[in-house]
C-alpha cells in the first residue's frame, strides 16, 4: 500500500513539475513560436460548399479531436486515454478508453472501460487566468466477467438490474497553460471527483455510506491541439 501511495505521489509530483515547465515555456518570447505543421494546416483549411443559394464554410477534417487526454484512476481504469472535442466553449465531451489488469493497476481481474464524459465548463473564460471549473455526467461501459446489459434468459424477469453501464455525475477543475509546441498550444492538468450511480444511491439511501465514500478521484493531463 505504501508502494502504491508512493507511486501516486511520484505521478503527481511529475505532473506538477511538468506544469511549471509548461508555464515557463508559454511565457517565453512569442517570436520563437513554431510554425504549424503542414498536416494541421491542411486539416484546418477552410472549405466551402454551395447548397442551392447558401454557401457553407466548414473546417476540413472537423472530426480530428482537438483534445488528447491521459487520465489516472477515476473508476474507468488504472490509466485511460481520452479524445475530446470543443463542441462549444462550454460543452466539451471526450471519449475515454481505460484499462486495468493485474500488471497494470494490480487487479486480479482485468477490466476494459469505455466512457463518454460530457463536460460542461462553468465559465467561458478561465478564472485567475488558468482555472477552468467544470462538471457533467459520464456514461461508462464496463467490460469484465459477468457484466451484462440484458440478463441471460434463465433469470426470472427483472431479477437483476443491468450492471454493464453506469452513470457518474462529476465535478472537476483544470489548470490550463499555453505552450509553444508544433502540434499543441495548450496543456491542462485536471482533477475531478465522480460518483457511480450505485454508490451514490447507497450514500442517499443509508446513513452508513457517507457522501465522500461514493467519490472516486481522477487526475489527468489534457493536450490541446493547435
Amino acid at each position: 500500500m505504501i508502494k502504491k501511495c508512493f507511486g501516486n505521489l511520484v505521478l503527481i509530483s511529475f505532473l506538477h513539475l511538468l506544469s511549471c515547465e509548461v508555464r515557463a515555456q508559454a511565457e517565453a518570447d512569442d517570436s520563437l513560436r513554431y510554425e504549424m505543421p503542414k498536416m494541421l494546416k491542411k486539416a484546418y483549411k477552410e472549405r466551402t460548399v454551395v447548397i442551392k443559394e447558401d454557401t457553407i464554410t466548414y473546417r476540413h477534417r472537423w472530426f480530428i479531436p482537438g483534445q488528447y487526454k491521459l487520465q489516472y484512476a477515476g473508476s474507468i481504469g488504472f490509466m485511460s486515454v481520452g479524445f475530446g472535442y470543443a463542441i462549444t466553449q462550454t460543452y466539451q465531451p471526450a471519449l475515454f478508453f481505460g484499462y486495468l489488469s493485474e500488471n497494470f493497476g494490480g487487479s486480479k481481474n482485468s477490466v476494459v472501460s469505455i466512457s463518454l464524459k460530457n463536460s460542461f465548463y462553468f465559465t467561458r473564460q478561465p478564472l485567475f487566468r488558468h482555472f477552468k471549473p467544470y462538471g457533467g455526467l459520464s456514461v461508462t461501459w464496463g467490460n469484465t466477467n459477468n457484466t451484462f446489459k440484458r440478463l441471460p434468459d434463465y433469470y426470472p424477469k427483472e431479477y437483476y438490474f443491468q450492471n454493464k453501464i453506469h452513470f457518474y455525475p462529476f465535478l472537476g477543475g483544470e489548470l490550463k497553460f499555453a505552450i509553444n509546441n508544433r502540434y499543441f498550444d495548450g496543456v491542462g492538468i485536471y482533477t475531478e471527483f465522480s460518483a457511480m450511480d450505485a454508490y451514490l444511491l447507497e450514500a442517499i439511501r443509508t446513513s452508513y455510506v457517507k457522501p465522500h465514500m461514493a467519490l472516486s478521484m481522477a487526475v489527468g493531463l489534457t493536450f490541446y491541439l493547435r
Partner: protein
Amino acid sequence: MAMLVVLLLLAGCKEIIEYSPYQNIVESKWKKQNISNYNKLLPAAKEPFQPFRIGLIADSHTYYDDFEEQVKYINTCNDLDFIIHLGDITLSANAREFDWYSEIVNKVNLPVLTLIGNHDCLGNGYDIYTEMFGESNFFFVYKGVKFVMFDNIIWEKKVQDPDFEWFDKALANDSDYKYVLPFAHIPPWDAQFTVGNEYLYNQILLKHNLDLSVHGHGHSYAYAQPYDDVNYLSVPSPEKSQLIILDVQEDAITHELVKY
C-alpha cells in the same frame, strides 16, 4: 495550492482512488478472512464436544444501517462463540460493497465466517470473494462439530449444477463428529435449482443421516420440513431486526429467534 490539495488527498485517503467498480484489489488486512477468523477460534475449536451457541445472520446486501444495528446487538450477546453469515454480502458485487461489508462485519467482537451468496457472484464478485474470504466451498471443525459451507450458486456462476460431489464428500462424518451441519446460501426449493438438483440436495442429507440444513436467500425466518425428514432453517436479513441463535446441545440442536 491545488497541487497540495491533490497531494494531501492522495496521501490521506486512498479509498478515494478507485480504478474500476469491478476491480479485484483486496487490501491485505482483509484477505482470506474466513481463514484468519477460524484461526481466532483456535485452540478452543480443537477441544472435544461441549455445548455452545452461535449466531446466524444473512443477506445483509446494502442494508448497512440495519446491519450495523445487528452488529451492535450481537456485541451485547456474551454467550455466543462465533457468527456465520449465510451469504449475499453485497447487492451488485461492486468493489466498495465488499469493503463496506468487511468494515462493518469486523466490528463484531466475535469471529465471523462468511458464505458466498448469489449477488456476490456478479461482475468479478466470485474472484473478489475468494480473495477476501477464501475458498467458496469449505468446512471446519469446532468443538467436535463439522460445519460444511456449500457454495450452491448456479445462475450467476454460469454453471449447471453446484459441486455436489464435494458436498457429498464433505458431509461424511469421517472423524466421529458429534454433528455435521450443512450451510448453503440458496435453499433447494429455489428457482435456481432444477427439480433434479432439488431432489439430490435433500437425498444427500438423508444419505448422511442429517436432519438440519441452514440457508439464507429468503430474507425471512422460516423453519420447515418441505421434504418430511430434514428440517430447513432460513435465516432472516438484518432489516427484520432478528437474530437466529443456534444452540448446539449434547442431545439436540435447537434454535432461537431473538427480536431486538
